[in-house]
């Protein structure tokens, strides 16, 4: 390739070109394909109908996450059918059955509900060390962008593309533009990666990243541990970008080292040497650059029905009449009506019914720790229901080894098994019409957590503090515990 300075995304792209012809999309090789039960059945059907096989089953892995309940599953071997099955919805069961049948027939490794390796698709890849710097990774799920946190080019695809990757291990793609999000300064104490990404989306807008791959850069990003980087990259899609990534560094290598699928011995050294070459070159040009000052941030929460409708917790519900852009103003009016909020209400006065800690945004061990730290020695407010749902069975096990489950249950929260749970209204964990939640997930769309449900996106620490008071609250607002 040319010696002109290139960005991280361009280097990965170039290294995966199977062919590139003028007037055609590039054909990219895909290093890892993650699969779940919702977006894959029609793709496997397509393969069957055309008499095709999965080209590289060893570059493919599947898990059950969206449809599985998070109660009644304590370990492997839970029956899917018959008495004792925790999956009571027959349609959900059919979808999980279809994945099991397809995985068997096509020779794809599958983590079934209750297995030690099972969990949300975007949580299990990094935990196994399957997602490594410089790789191309796809999944029939928009939050595949999460995996860019380790320096991989990872993006969500639709079911037709899932079938394409299964059949060919490649994907035709037009080369996207690049966008730098420079995060200067350091995050103040009590401000987390979730607050940062909500602030970025509020600034960039839900369509601002459209057609771009975002690279998060700068001091504040470098000082984040990998789990927090995963939170940031997770919500790239909420800014309209298909992928978001962070250059691999010592923090990344330290995270990967010793994980089951990470290279070992001489191969490790070889890999690290390559990974170090991936960082964006001095002088490389991004199509767009946005700068965010981390040192000015405070905890963020959403007030509306898209993730860009977010404000610092200290502010009030905005007045649509004061928004000059007519589309944005109309969308704010609609959002307030749906959310049942009145302009001018301080966000701290908004009372919630439910608190959800979990999802591929904030369902990792560090997220649960952050929530537990706030809850230790405190109690969930009367009348508030709090669900804590680990992102994977491994996270659950690690959390239990540290006694976090006790902290949650003693505070009055429910401790669950792994899955997408209340992030989307598909399994038994849902909001009822009109019910309001503080949720650590990534989407506050109308009905996302259940028909008529009202969602405020928050960090795990804010979620836990909110559970204590019953109103949107930051940990710093709580009365300190007597020592």
């Amino acid at each position: 390739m040319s010696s002109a300075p290139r960005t991280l995304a361009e280097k990965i792209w170039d290294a995966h070109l199977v062919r590139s012809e003028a007037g055609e999309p590039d054909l990219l090789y895909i290093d890892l394909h993650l699969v779940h039960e919702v977006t894959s059945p029609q793709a496997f059907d397509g393969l069957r109908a055309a008499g095709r096989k999965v080209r590289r089953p060893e570059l493919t892995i599947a898990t059950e996450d969206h449809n599985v309940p998070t109660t009644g599953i304590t370990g492997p071997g839970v029956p899917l059918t018959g008495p004792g099955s925790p999956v009571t919805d027959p349609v959900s069961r059919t979808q999980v059955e279809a994945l099991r049948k397809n995985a068997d027939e096509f020779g794809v490794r599958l983590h079934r509900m209750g297995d030690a390796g099972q969990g949300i698709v975007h949580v299990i890849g990094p935990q196994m060390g399957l997602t490594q710097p410089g790789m191309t990774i796809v999944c029939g799920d928009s939050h595949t962008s999460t995996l860019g946190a380790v320096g991989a080019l990872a993006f969500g695809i639709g079911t037709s593309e899932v079938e394409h990757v299964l059949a060919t291990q490649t994907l035709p793609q037009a080369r996207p533009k690049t966008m730098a999000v420079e995060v200067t300064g350091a995050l103040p104490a009590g401000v987390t990666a979730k607050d940062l990404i909500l602030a970025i989306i509020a600034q960039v807008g839900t369509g601002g990243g459209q057609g771009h791959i975002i690279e998060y850069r700068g001091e504040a990003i470098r000082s984040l541990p990998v789990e927090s980087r995963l939170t940031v990259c997770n919500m790239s899609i909420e800014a309209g970008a298909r992928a978001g990534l962070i250059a691999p560094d010592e923090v990344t290598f330290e995270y990967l080292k010793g994980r089951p699928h990470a290279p070992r011995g001489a191969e490790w050294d070889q890999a690290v040497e390559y990974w170090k070459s991936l960082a964006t070159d001095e002088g490389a040009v991004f199509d767009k650059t946005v700068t965010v000052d981390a040192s000015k941030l405070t905890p963020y929460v959403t007030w509306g029905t898209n993730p860009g409708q977010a404000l610092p917790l200290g502010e009030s519900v905005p007045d649509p009449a004061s928004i000059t852009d007519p589309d944005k103003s109309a969308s704010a009016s609609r959002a307030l009506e749906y959310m049942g909020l009145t302009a001018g209400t301080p966000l701290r006065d908004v009372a919630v019914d439910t608190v959800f800690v979990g999802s591929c945004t904030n369902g990792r061990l560090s997220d649960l720790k952050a929530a537990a730290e706030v809850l230790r020695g405190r109690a969930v407010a009367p009348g508030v229901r709090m669900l804590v749902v680990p992102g994977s069975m491994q996270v659950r096990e690690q959390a239990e080894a540290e006694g976090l489950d006790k902290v949650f249950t003693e505070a009055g929260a429910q401790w669950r098994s792994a899955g997408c749970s209340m992030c989307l209204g598909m399994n038994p964990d849902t909001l009822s019409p009109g019910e309001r939640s503080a949720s650590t997930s990534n989407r506050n769309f109308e009905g996302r957590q259940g028909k008529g449900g009202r969602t405020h996106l928050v960090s795990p620490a804010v979620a836990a503090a909110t559970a204590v008071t019953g109103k949107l609250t930051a940990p710093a607002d709580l009365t300190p515990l007597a020592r």
Partner: protein
Amino acid sequence: MEPFITHTGRAVPLRRTNVDTDQIIPAVYLKRVSREGFGEGLFAAWREDPKFVLNQSRYDGATILVAGTDFGIGSSREHAVWALVDYGFRVVIAPRFGDIFRTNATKAGLLPVQLPEATVARMQDAAEADRSFTIDLKAREVRVEGGLIASFEIDDYTRWRLMEGLDDIGLTLRHETAIAAFEQARPAWLPATL
């Protein structure tokens, strides 16, 4: 996939921005394992409102949706496209689309047409006035009865694929030699799942 060359039909104005795929089809409708029948879940929550535009009988049989900016953002669910197609739509016109939605649309035979906001607003008015629309992919043009004509951009390759109704996998498999050669050169330390 059915080839798309030109399509004439009536249009529905959806005067909303940021219509995400959770609105187009809520998660609870995603449980089917076939590609059919998703029309039932199209805009499910909004269809409970008698005033919702798709519930107005004057728009029955419309095949073109004229939507606001950032249509199809959010989840990658191709079911959103299947639901629109199953309901009878062949074209969606909007000022901007979610990236994955737009790709999914072109893979499943729904034509996404991106036009400037002001043009889309005029088209929404035309739809309300029951004007007939023609979307000509060959000429890359939308023609609205009454004289409004707008050219849209679509890359040559996608246009050709849609006009021929071609299956992407078949096209890629013609490059089997290049794929196999690429696979030979992959570093040994890359992870495998099995």
